[in-house]
């Protein structure tokens, strides 16, 4: 029976696309870690820490194991004992998310090779890092938000302690504390896994598995479109609000959450980031010895990832809640989408203003790379925000169904943005390293975006494609 249930779960979750996604992440990790160049151990360690932090914190916060509606309706209502269901669900989830983590962390094997850590113990540590998030996600399912936030803070502190000389930090095995760090990590993983098995073996199994967020408060402040022209209403809606796609919660349980963040909140965050960046550069980085890896780590990489994050973050979830039967039955699709693209571009420029100002300040102070990033934030970020948004529409990437947020049941059209964003990442690296290439990149991106904006058929065909695929 166990094997049958496991087979069913694995079959219902895995697709060929999953292997492609793993392959893409593997290539990305190799590409990124190799940019560490002379400082591979340090950079690779940060990289591993970053992925572990993302996986562990999102698992703790979202909680639960992914279940489909079919699981809930048929499998969990069937007379199957928990001792069969629990390991089957655990293994299917481990295959779903751990393989992704291992492929993301695979470049870290380069670090293990170059570091003092024994390769075998290092591999055991990485496997523990892959399993621990799943155990913790089960342990935290259904707990109050305060407990989940508290546990997430402890997890973050634990990961960062590796860089503060704490011998029991999860990554301290890379900096001379091989035995203490590894033993502690393995012990924590065993305890967390045992507790999670015990917890979900009880009668609360279905609840632990499907701790879906069903309670949701209403909106505190409502938008008003009173007296607005139709075009302005469309622009204002898509400028004022930032949506994040629910696929971001795919580490833990399926959650269909509606989050609407005001653009002014994001602008406050980028303002704080800009101020922090200026102080960090002037009071910390400027005093470091001038080596190439310092400038890469502390100046170039944060700038690249912030600019990349803005263009991608503001465009991915934008239309995930759009309803074709409402907007496009009311408005010509090409007109509606052009206005929306312009709104998203304006939005990305608006939140970039503090970073533009910060880079102007840093350029005056003679910080390397700052001058290029003034133009990157002012022009390249809005252009690429527009491009990724336009492409996502054509591939219906934004229309997510409940089952699509399961780890490993990827619909590749959802990942259309990854190649686009990967191109932007490569371009950002090129622009940073090859002086004089920025104008060409901006003009090239502008031409590409214009083709999208001016082509009427692009939008109409995108809509027809979406409807024919069943997304109304």
């Amino acid at each position, binding site marked *: 029976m166990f094997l049958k249930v496991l087979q069913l779960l694995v079959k219902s979750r895995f697709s060929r696309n999953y292997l492609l996604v793993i392959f893409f992440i593997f290539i990305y990790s190799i590409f990124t870690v190799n940019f560490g160049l002379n400082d591979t151990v340090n950079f690779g360690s940060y990289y591993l820490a970053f992925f572990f932090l993302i996986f562990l914190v999102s698992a703790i916060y979202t909680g639960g194991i992914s279940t489909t509606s079919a699981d809930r309706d048929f499998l969990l209502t069937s007379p199957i004992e928990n001792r069969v269901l629990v390991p089957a669900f655990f293994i299917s989830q481990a295959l779903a998310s751990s393989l992704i983590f291992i492929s993301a962390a695979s470049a870290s094997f380069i670090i293990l090779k170059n570091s003092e850590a024994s390769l075998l113990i290092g591999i055991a540590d990485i496997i523990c890092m892959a399993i621990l998030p799943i155990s913790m996600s089960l342990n935290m399912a259904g707990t109050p938000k305060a407990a989940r936030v508290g546990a997430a803070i402890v997890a973050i502190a634990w990961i960062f302690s590796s860089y503060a000389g704490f011998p029991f930090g999860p990554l301290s095995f890379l900096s001379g504390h091989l035995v203490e760090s590894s033993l502690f990590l393995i012990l924590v993983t065993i305890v967390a896994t045992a507790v999670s098995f015990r917890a979900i073996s009880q009668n609360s199994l279905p609840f632990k598995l499907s701790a879906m967020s069903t309670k949701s408060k209403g909106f505190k402040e*409502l938008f008003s479109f009173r007296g607005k022209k139709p075009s302005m209403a469309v622009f204002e809606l898509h400028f004022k609000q930032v949506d994040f796609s629910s696929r971001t919660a795919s580490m833990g349980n399926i959650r269909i959450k509606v989050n609407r963040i005001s653009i002014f909140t994001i602008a406050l965050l980028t303002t704080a980031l800009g101020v922090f960046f200026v102080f960090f550069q002037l009071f910390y980085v400027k005093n470091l010895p001038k080596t190439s890896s310092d400038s890469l780590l502390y100046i170039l990489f944060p700038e690249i990832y912030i600019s990349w994050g803005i263009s991608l973050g503001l465009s991915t979830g934008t239309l995930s809640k759009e309803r074709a039967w409402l907007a496009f039955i009311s408005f010509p699709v090409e007109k509606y989408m052009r206005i929306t693209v312009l709104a998203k571009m304006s939005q990305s420029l608006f939140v970039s203003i503090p970073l533009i100002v910060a880079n102007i300040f840093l350029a005056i102070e003679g910080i390397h790379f700052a001058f290029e990033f003034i133009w990157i934030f002012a022009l390249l970020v809005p252009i690429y925000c527009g491009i990724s948004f336009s492409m996502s529409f054509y591939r219906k990437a934004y229309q997510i169904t409940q089952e699509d947020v399961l780890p490993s049941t990827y619909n590749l059209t959802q990942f259309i943005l990854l190649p686009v964003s990967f191109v932007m990442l490569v371009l950002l690296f090129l622009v940073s390293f090859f002086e004089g290439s920025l104008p060409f990149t901006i003009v090239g991106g502008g031409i590409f975006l214009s083709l999208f904006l001016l082509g009427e058929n692009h939008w109409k065909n995108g809509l027809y494609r979406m409807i024919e695929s069943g997304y109304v």
Partner: protein
Amino acid sequence: MLQEDNKDKEDLSNALMMDSVVKTFGDIRAVDGINIQIKDRERVALLGENGAGKTTTIKIISGLMKPDKGMVRIYGHKPSSIEAKRYIGYLPEDASPYLNLSVRENLDYIGTIRRTENVQEKIEFFLDLLDLKSMEKQKPLTLSRGNRQKLCLALSIIHEPRFAIMDEPLNYLDIPTQEKVFDYFEKMNATFLISTHILSIARRLTEKVIILSSGKKVWEGQIKELEDLAEGTKTIESIVSELMKNVS
């Protein structure tokens, strides 16, 4: 056969003209040479078994899907044109509103982009009519399926369309709300095309029936004619069922 070159000449006497429309999905002919004519202010029910092509037909009429062959005109305009969109109010089956807007914001946004006159008054009217007032600030995700359907219904007709195209409009609604909707539809001075499986709804809301089967139109006529066919010995449902099976 109607000619393609008669383009965009407004024809207010005919709400819908469909001529030899074909739509295929791979090997499946979902719509197979359908001809439909609906006059202005006429109320028509679209009946058919599961997979008969009703939803595809409705999506083509509302401009959300492009036919492979044939011609469709809404009051003389192409369904995807802005002119046709001004006339149409469309409600799909299992419709979902904007999940990131509240109930009131949904009505405000769609009302505004549809250039609805006195939009705030209309919002208040529909909030009252459909008992949504107490949940106007709520996210649609927190509403019951029935309340979400009420919101979608209001969104589809807030601009008082001249041509209402609806796929199972009364799904999920409780009986008192159904009665209110029946009353409101009766007062609307509009053309109706309603796809439904429930004959009692068709009988109350429409006077004419079109029956589809395997993508083809198999029967068209007044509801009265269906009742005559039943001749008091059979139910109207059994007559419709027989008609659906008679596909040439």
